């Protein structure tokens, strides 16, 4: 009889264990992916510019101030969702955004920038996903915060929305003050 009574406590014990995980889960962000690159220099690259294919871009061309590197592609629906946010960042927050056009074709990407406006200071064209591989890109869209010295300071996987941008803007502002 006593074991029977003890059995009745199993549901509440299971519920408590589950509750503990849910509690822990509240402080975790599923969209925040740790990156091996955080704190390390932005990987070296040599790729052509999207708008002007004759021009070769390298690490030296990255802005000499804290900036964003945004991985995007025309085949990615979330990039379209994210686009107005990027426009507002470029316009209202005055933070340079470098585009990394990832596994895409040049005519489509150029058309995208014509049709939806261009938030980027320039775009690196990475049709084979080489730089994306070095960065450890998980999927588009993805955005890195890189400081004035070219060190990766933060990574965000998935589209930037109003809420995530609040956090990210604070990080960029802190970096600007440091520099």
């Amino acid at each position, binding site marked *: 009889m006593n074991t*029977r*009574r003890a059995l*009745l*406590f199993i*549901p*509440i014990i299971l*519920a*408590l264990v*589950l*509750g503990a*995980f*849910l*509690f*822990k*889960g*509240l*402080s*975790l*962000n*599923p*969209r925040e*992916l*740790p990156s091996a690159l955080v704190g390390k220099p932005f990987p070296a690259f040599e790729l052509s510019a999207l708008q002007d294919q004759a021009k070769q871009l390298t690490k030296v061309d990255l802005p000499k101030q804290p900036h964003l590197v945004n991985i995007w592609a*025309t085949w990615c629906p979330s990039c*379209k*969702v994210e*686009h*107005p946010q990027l426009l507002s960042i470029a316009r209202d927050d005055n933070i340079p955004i470098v585009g990394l056009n990832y596994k895409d074709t040049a*005519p*489509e990407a150029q*058309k995208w920038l014509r049709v939806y406006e261009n938030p980027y200071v320039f775009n690196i064209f990475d049709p084979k996903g080489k730089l994306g591989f070095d960065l450890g890109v998980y999927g588009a869209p993805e955005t890195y915060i890189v400081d004035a010295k070219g060190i990766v300071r933060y990574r965000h996987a*998935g589209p930037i929305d109003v*809420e995530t941008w609040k956090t990210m803007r604070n990080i960029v502002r802190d970096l600007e003050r440091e520099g």
Partner: protein
Amino acid sequence: MIPEFGTFSLILALCLSIALAVVPLVGASSGNAQLMGYARPLTAGVFALLTFSFGCLFYAFWTDDFSVQYVANHSNTALPLEFKLSAVWGGHEGSLLLWLWILACWTFAVSIFSKEMPQEILARVLAVMGIIIIGFGLFVLLTSSPFTRYLPNFPADGADLNPLLQDPGLIFHPPMLYMGYVGFSVAFAFAIAALLSGKLDAAWARWSRPWTNVAWVFLTLGIALGSWWAYYELGWGGWWFWDPVENASFMPWLIGTALVHSLAVTEKRGVFKNWTLLLAIFAFSLSLLGTFLVRSGVLTSVHAFATDPTRGMFVLVLLAITVGGSLLLYALKAPSVKSDSNFTLVSRESFLLVNNIILTVVCITVLLGTLYPLIVDALGMGKLSVGPPYFNAFFVPFMSLLTLFIGVGTLSRWKRNGGQMWRTLGVIALLCVLAGIATPFVYAGAMDWWGALGGGLMAWVLFISFRDVMNKVANKTDKLAAVFKLSRAFWGMVLAHIGVGITIVGITMVTIYNDERDLRMAIGDTMTLGDYSLTFTDVRKIEGPNFISDQGVFEVTLDGRPYTTLAPEKRFYTTTRQIMTEAAIDPGLFRDLYVALGEELEDGAWAVRFQFKPFVRWIWLGAIFMSIGGLLAAMDKRYSRKRMGAAKASS
């Protein structure tokens, strides 16, 4: 001023619900009839105040009151009126108010339709509902009031409703789903009342059965509507994605289904009492868990509500109090609830127990799959996601097994069975194997084992139901008249089970024989899909109230004769700057033609996606059958007031 009235009546409703939670409960435990008598008027008060508050939010949307933050964020002057009004539940705050109002509706309904119920039980049930209203009332008032103002500088126009939600599907899907979710609170309240009083008899089960059935019907319809909406609105023709939020609605459905059956056994045979109580607690707990998963942002999902950790924390505390409290009560009081009778291994009781176990196991596997990414992350073991292959791998075998037991359970008898049943089942099984193997040949002219499985299971449910009807009228002289005299509850069961078969056929056929093509088409191009051929004739520019759109025109011919015109759209919503794909669908009982317009390519060509989806409607048709079945069972004559009164008098 009106939004402030809304907040004010919300606060008053909260005060009344505190009284509702305390007074009748004190009355019930001290046997004070006067205190218990307050339960009903208090319920009416809470319902009236919440209705008024909800009405205030409608008014704010109707009059484009953009000084209210919630309205400014979810509406726009250019939005059509029907979407302005359904935008009331288009975001977190408003949908929670809907949740709360529906909870008040259920509570009010219980107080109205349970006049014959013993006062003590009614007082306890309403008080428990009152406690839940307090919890959610506080949630709305403290963390997510829809009436908060933008003052002094409010925007001239609103940010517009998410284009995905500008669809008739949104008008019905959330209220239906919430009716189901929240409806399980009634079964929960009955369970808690039974645990508090220690009284759980056949009458108790008879009281709570129709409520559970109706809640289950709403949940079934809500899930089906959501699936249908995803199918035509998201633009890629899928109908179920094993997304965490879909799973969150599916888990209470699975447990609710188990509960409906377990209650049947408890009513008829007086066994499984503890199990029934546990299922009732879990069905509602899983509804709350679903709310938590959607609102807290602990899992990534397509249903991206604006997430906020304080809200997540609040729901978690609510969850802890409700689930923890009820399970503790269960652990302490369940031993006082005893079973009335025994049954043998081969009996309907056993088979229904097996059905319950399978449903519970499936629910646990869905739960694990849904929470696994979170658990792994919380243990610091990395990030991962669980995809459809995991879910499909266990879902198909378990559901096939469950369908087999639907058959065995239906034909078996209470208490004990003879060998006759096994012979009948054997014959039917043989027929089903033949029907199953014939299915893929008849449809496609070639063998496919999954097709055979789907066809065989449908045949199984159908033949068994037919046999069951025959058994019921076997001893009657006028068989046809006897068929019409069978109870609504019986027909409800038959319909619901056939519904399961129909859904299985839909899922099987659309999974195996779906024909999908992604093409590059210029104007004038034609493509052939089975007997249909589609010609891309034009792209028009269209201007809607709050969007501009490219509309492709496809002339469809069937066997060379003109059949119909399909016009898929690519819309650009100007306020939110979002692009939406509106697929064009030609629905049919046996197949859907599905055309979606993709990107414009260079030199005027377009990316176009065609799909030929056989039997896809059957998935939702089955859900409709199940719902009608559930409703019929809930409307069975023995639940009518007169009978209930008589039953009480005689007991």
